[in-house]
């Protein structure tokens, strides 16, 4: 059965290692924070200027001056710090943030990513995504395998304006975990009960299947 958003977040949480500083994009990536095991020490950075983000505040304790990049009210944990936008992107550009998790409209088999604009129809803006994908050493994309019309989001080439080139390392979708390799999307894991054939059918880009593909453990 294909994963839901929470399932994707749970699987990505397993990619987070002890000692990582992590930047979480808006949407599914934000959910990842909820599933990182307590035994692991990580800190979440939000590019609007906070390190050491905690959970949402208790009702009545929201502070308009303490939000994340999704404009949600948040709290901070012991060891947190606030800083300005230039320093925030110094952390990102300077590769001090070890892992970036973000959503995408399209990913190409060479690691290109598009997630900020549909010409003539929709423009959200790139926000901090272009800085993140241009600099992060480790980028994981969290997204549905296909769009609402059922078309694949894992493509030979992106059709939408790019956010970054050749930067995505790993993709976790509702169907699979894939690694971007020089030859295309290497299938690493299947969602529970989802067959390789289903994944192949939903993948437009070159899918590489080597040996037996295990099911994800969540």
């Amino acid at each position: 059965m294909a994963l839901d958003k929470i399932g994707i977040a749970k699987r990505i949480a397993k990619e987070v290692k002890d000692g990582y500083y992590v930047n979480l994009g808006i949407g599914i990536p934000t959910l990842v924070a909820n599933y990182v095991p307590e035994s692991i020490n990580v800190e979440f950075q939000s590019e609007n200027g906070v390190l050491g983000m905690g959970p949402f505040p208790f009702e009545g304790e929201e502070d308009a001056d303490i939000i994340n990049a999704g404009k949600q009210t948040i709290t901070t944990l012991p060891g947190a710090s606030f800083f300005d936008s230039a320093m925030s992107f110094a952390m990102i550009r300077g590769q001090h943030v070890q892992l970036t998790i973000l959503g995408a409209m399209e990913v190409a088999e060479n690691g290109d990513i598009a997630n900020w604009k549909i010409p003539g129809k929709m423009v959200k803006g790139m926000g901090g995504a272009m800085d993140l994908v241009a600099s992060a050493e480790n980028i994981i994309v969290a997204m549905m395998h296909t769009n609402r019309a059922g078309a694949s989001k894992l493509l030979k080439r992106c059709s939408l304006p790019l956010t970054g080139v050749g930067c995505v390392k790993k993709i976790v979708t509702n169907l699979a975990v894939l690694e971007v390799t020089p030859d295309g999307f290497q299938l690493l894991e299947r969602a529970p009960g989802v067959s390789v054939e289903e994944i192949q059918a939903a993948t437009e880009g070159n899918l590489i299947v080597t040996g037996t593909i295990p099911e994800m453990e969540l």
Partner: protein
Amino acid sequence: MIRKEVANVKDALAGVTNNMTLMLGGFGLSGIPENAIAELVQLNVTNLTCISNNAGVDDFGLGLLLQKKQIKKMVSSYVGENEEFERQMLSGELAVELIPQGTLAERCRAAQAGFPAIYTPAGYGTEVAEGKETREFNGKMYVLEYAFKADFAFVKAWKGDTAGNLIFKGTARNFNPCMCGAAKITVAEVEELVPAGTLNPNEIHIPGIFVQRIFQGAKYEKRIEQRTVRQKS
């Protein structure tokens, strides 16, 4: 000590005219110069170019100026859920230069710190880099981006003193420090204006040298865009 305080928002915005380029601090609705924006609406100046990460929401922040068609061009990183912003952009009524958030911050800092341009990897290979100079350093590609030139910068701080020193609070800090001293005239509005000597010199985020005018703001609404909470168990 060089005194920077002015009596009110009117005095603070003296000299703002049509066709100017303005920088405005804030991320979403957090840390925006609410008083300066309200006065810009009052002044009804038009044909403005606004450098600001976002353009507020439909009925608050810079959205107020968008509704009155006072803005000719926005330089921002994010449109988000601002429908009027997206509508004017897609219809071509509003010129929009969308640039990466870190590039926005650093083009402000370059203006503040006297750098003519910077090399950043953000946007390389995308339409953001089209027509721009690119260059390789150590096997990686970078885009040359220029320092902003602006007439006024409007920033909002938590506390400030009469010498123009500023302290920001939480994530309301965001772009505000980077914009101080990045325009010909920097106007700071603060929630609490105190006499010089009150703030600890070690705790000042932006020294007064980067600020030309400071005033105590009034009636901060500090609207929350996404009120997310959890229940006490």
